[in-house]
C-alpha cells in the first residue's frame, strides 16, 4: 500500500481531531462522576454539603449525570454537544449551590463558596470548549475537498522536483502571490485576496517521498486551515507522469470566509484544474501560455469576460 495514504491529514481525510481541552473536560467529568458515585460522603464534606441529607442523596445522581459527557468527550464524538450538556449541568449545580450558600454559615459556608467559585470557573471553561467545538464543526461543514489530476510529459522526478520547491507554486497557482520557504519543511504562504486583501499562513511539509509524493498542511492557528497532497505516478511505456492532487481547506465564516470563497470562485475544483493545466504548461513549455484574449493564461473564471483577440494596449512596441 502507498505509505502516503497512511499520513494523517485531518483536514483532507475528514477525521475529527480531539482537542486537548474537550479531552480534559471529559476526564474531569469522569473523575467527578466516579467520585460522586463511589464516595458521596467525602465529596459532600469537601463541598460543605455534608449537613444536608437531600444534597447527599442527590450527589450519586449528579455523578451519574457526569458519566454520559465523560464517555462522549473521551470518545471524541460530537464534543460540542457534550460540552454543551456539561454547561447545562454546570448551570444546575450553580443554582443548587446558590441556594446552599444562602442558608449556611461559618466553615460550611466557606466551603460552599469555594465550590461555587470552582464550578463557576469550570463553567467558563465549558462554555469556551463548547464555542470552540461548534466553530470547529462549522468549519468542518464548510470544508472544501477536491481531487484533480493532470498528465505531464516529463519523468516523475522532474515533476516532483518542481513542486517540492514550494517557491515555484505561485507560478501556476494563480491565487498565490508568493510562497517563501523558511526552512526545508516550513514555508510562508501569501494568497491574493479580492480588493488587494492578503491572506497569509504558514505551512509545513508533513510527508515527503522523493519522486513519489508530497503532503503539506497549514500550521495550527491559521485562519484558513488547509492541507494538500500531490502524488506523482509514473506511466508505463514512456507516457509521462500522472500528477494527482488532493486539496482541502476550511474557509472561516464571515468576511474572511467570503473573501476566501471569492478567491476560489464558484467552481473551486475548476480553478484547481486550471492550476494543474498551468503546472503542465510551465513544466513542459517553460512558461504559462498566454494569448491576447487571455493574457494571464488559463482561467475558466475569466473566460466569460475575455478581451478581444487584440494586442494589449500599452503603447507602441518600438
Amino acid at each position: 500500500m502507498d505509505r502516503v495514504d497512511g499520513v494523517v491529514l485531518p483536514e483532507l481525510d475528514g477525521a475529527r481531531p480531539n482537542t486537548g481541552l474537550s479531552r480534559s473536560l471529559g476526564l474531569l467529568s469522569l473523575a467527578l462522576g466516579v467520585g460522586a458515585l463511589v464516595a458521596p460522603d467525602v465529596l459532600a464534606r469537601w463541598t460543605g454539603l455534608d449537613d444536608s441529607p437531600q444534597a447527599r442523596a442527590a450527589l450519586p445522581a449528579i455523578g451519574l449525570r457526569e458519566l454520559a459527557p465523560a464517555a462522549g468527550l473521551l470518545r471524541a464524538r460530537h464534543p460540542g454537544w457534550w460540552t454543551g450538556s456539561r454547561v447545562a449541568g454546570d448551570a444546575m449545580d450553580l443554582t443548587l449551590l446558590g441556594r446552599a450558600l444562602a442558608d449556611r454559615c461559618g466553615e460550611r459556608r466557606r466551603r460552599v463558596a469555594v465550590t461555587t467559585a470552582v464550578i463557576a470557573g469550570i463553567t467558563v471553561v465549558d462554555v469556551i470548549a463548547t464555542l470552540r467545538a461548534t466553530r470547529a464543526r462549522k468549519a468542518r461543514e464548510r470544508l472544501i475537498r477536491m481531487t484533480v489530476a493532470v498528465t505531464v510529459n516529463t519523468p516523475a522526478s522532474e515533476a516532483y522536483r518542481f513542486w517540492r520547491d514550494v517557491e515555484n507554486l505561485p507560478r501556476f497557482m494563480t491565487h498565490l502571490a508568493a510562497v517563501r520557504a523558511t526552512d526545508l519543511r516550513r514555508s510562508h504562504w501569501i494568497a491574493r485576496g479580492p480588493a488587494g486583501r492578503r491572506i497569509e499562513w504558514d505551512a509545513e511539509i508533513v510527508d515527503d517521498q522523493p519522486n513519489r509524493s508530497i503532503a503539506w498542511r497549514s500550521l495550527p492557528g491559521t485562519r484558513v486551515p488547509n492541507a494538500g497532497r500531490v502524488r506523482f505516478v509514473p506511466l508505463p511505456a514512456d507516457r509521462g507522469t500522472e500528477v494527482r492532487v488532493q486539496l482541502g481547506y476550511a474557509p472561516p465564516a464571515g468576511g474572511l470566509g467570503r473573501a476566501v470563497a471569492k478567491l476560489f470562485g464558484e467552481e473551486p475544483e475548476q480553478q484547481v484544474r486550471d492550476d494543474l493545466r498551468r503546472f503542465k504548461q510551465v513544466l513542459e513549455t517553460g512558461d504559462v501560455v498566454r494569448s491576447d484574449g487571455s493574457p494571464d493564461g488559463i482561467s475558466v473564471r475569466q473566460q466569460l469576460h475575455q478581451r478581444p483577440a487584440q494586442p494589449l494596449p500599452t503603447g507602441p512596441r518600438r
Partner: protein
Amino acid sequence: MKATAWMGRDSVKVVDVPEPKIMSPRDAIVKISTTAICGSDLHLYHGYLPAMRKGDILGHEFLGEVVEVGPEVGNLKVGDRVVVPFPIACGRCRSCRQGLFSVCENSNPNAGFAEKLLGHSPAGVFGYSHLTGGYAGGQAEYARVPFADVGPLKVPDDVPDDQAVLLADVFPTGYMGAEMCDIQPGDVVAVWGAGPVGLLAAASARLLGADRVIVIDRYPYRLRLAEQHAGAEVLNYEQVDVLDALNELTAGRGPDACIDAVGLESHHDNPALYAYDRTKQAVRVETERPFALRQAILACRSGGVVSVVGAYGGFVDKFPMGALMNRSLIMRTGQCHVQRYTRPLLERIRRGEIDPSFVISHRLPLKDAPKGYKIFQKKQDDCTKVVLKV
C-alpha cells in the same frame, strides 16, 4: 498598426490596434508581408463557429520578417523570412512529440472552455475564435508568434511569398487530406469542394500516386482549375446526380477514397433539402450542414477511406453511421498538423513538383480586406483565394 477585425456577422473592418509585444521567452514578433483569407475565415465571417468577439483580429495564414525574438528562440534571428503554421504548438507535449501539432495539449489558454464543447481541447490557432485560444490573427501588419522555436519555417530566397504563404495552411491541409487516404496504386480519389483546400488535396492525391482524381463542385471556374492543375475529372453537382455519376465513373465500385474539403457550410442543389438543414442550422438545432460529408460516406467503396479536412464545429444531424459501419469504412480527420508538412512540402515546391500558387486568384492590399472577404464569400470575379499584401 492596421489589422482586420471581426465586427459581427458578415462584417470585417480594418482597424487601428496596438502592436503586439513579446509575452513569453519563446515568442517572436513577425512583420507581415503576405497574408491570406481562408475558407475557415468564411465560417467565422458567417458566424458559424462559436466564441467570436467583436474586435477579434482574423487571419491564420501569414508570412513575414522576424523583427524581434524572445530569449529562448535560438533558431530564428531578426530579418529571417518565415511562414507561420496556423496551429500554435508547444513542440514538447506528448501530442506534439507524436506530430499531432493541431491537438497540442498546452497552446490553448481557453482549454477548459473548449473541453465543455469538444470533450478535450485542440491546440490554439491564430485568429480563430476564443474557443481556440483568443489569439490575435495575422491579417495585420504584425503578429506575435508563440513557440517561435517550433512553428515558423525559414523560407529560402528562391521561393516567392505567394508560394510560401500557402504552407501556413491550405497546401499542408490538402496534402494531409490526401495522405490520410493511404493511396494505393490504381486508386480513384474523389474530392468534394474545389476551393483552395480541395484543389490542393486533388493535386496532392496525384503527387501521392492516385490513378484518377475526381473533383466535385458547382463553380465551373474552380472545376477548370481542378482539370488544369490536378489533372482531375470533374463533376458539377448542379448538373449531375453525384452518386450516380461516381458509380458510373467507377463501374459501380465507388471511389477508393473520398475527401470532404467542404466543411460545415456545404451547399445542396435541392432547394428543399438545403432549406431543411439551413433552417436547423439557423435556429442552432444542428450546427453543421453536412451534405458533402453524407454524400462522401455514401459514395465511398466498401472498405475505403473517408478523409475529412473540411471544418466542423459541433454536431451533425442525419449522419449515415449505418453506411460507415456496415461497409467497413474508415474515417480519418483533423485540423492539419501543419508543422509536420512544412519542410517536406517546401522541398516539393523547390523541386518543381508542384506550384500551389495556382489557387490564388486575387492579390489586394491589406486595407481592402473587407472587399476580399466579400468577393471570396460570394465567389465573385472568379475568386478562389485572396492574398493580402501588407
